[in-house]
């Protein structure tokens, strides 16, 4: 440890080496969906602030959220929310002693993809 070479060491294979797999892709999309939901969350906070301010301000924020662009962001975020929720469930399962078997992890990944789409459609039908 005292004077080890810290600069010029061989690196372990990373994203540019590995081919995309169900395990890595289903995992990175949990991160992407989680962070991307910031956009929708800020839009909703703005909408609430406008609603609490005045009818005129609400009309501006409400018009933006219900425009085609706002609609698209909210719809994609709804899917992101369900995907991230299912990914979170998988994490809670793993973190509390669940199986790390690769074949099973791949099944769970497929379950997250299918499940999130089904839940998104169901939600749109309900609300």
């Amino acid at each position, binding site marked *: 440890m005292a004077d080890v070479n810290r600069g010029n060491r061989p690196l372990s294979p990373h994203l540019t080496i590995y081919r995309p797999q169900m395990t890595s892709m289903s995992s990175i999309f949990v991160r992407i969906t*989680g962070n991307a939901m910031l956009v929708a969350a800020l839009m909703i906070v703005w909408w609430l602030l406008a609603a*609490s301010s005045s009818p005129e301000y609400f009309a501006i924020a409400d018009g933006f959220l219900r425009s085609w662009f706002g609609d698209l962001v909210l719809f994609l975020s709804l899917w992101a929310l369900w995907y991230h929720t299912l990914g979170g469930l998988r994490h809670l399962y793993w973190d509390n002693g669940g199986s790390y078997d690769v074949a099973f992890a791949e099944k769970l990944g497929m379950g997250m993809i299918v499940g999130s789409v089904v839940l998104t459609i169901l939600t749109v039908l309900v*609300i």
Partner: protein
Amino acid sequence: MAFVTDRKRAVGLGSAKDGTHHYWSMQVSSWALLILCPLFVLTFGSTLGGTYEEVTATFARPFPALIAALTIWVGFMHFKGGAQVLIEDYTHGATRAALIIGNIFLSYAAAATGVFAIARMAF
């Protein structure tokens, strides 16, 4: 070439004392959001599209107001933790510190704004 032993380098730096706080706070907030998010999606989703009067009347009721306030607060605290790990994974040095501080500022500012807005409609 530094003539310092490993032990000499480590002495005085102290232990981290705590390494589980981040993990635990993400666990607790994710369990909470598991309950809050579906309820928020239903209450917010059925409110969006209403008139100004309908929207303000909805958030004047206890249940939608509490669900929205809790979801926004816990959600942004969960975001704060998750986004910090993202920053720590991909950035270094001063950039990392600046982004982490900015992330914490943004998370608290957005959470406080959301709760304030709901409180103003509720009271």
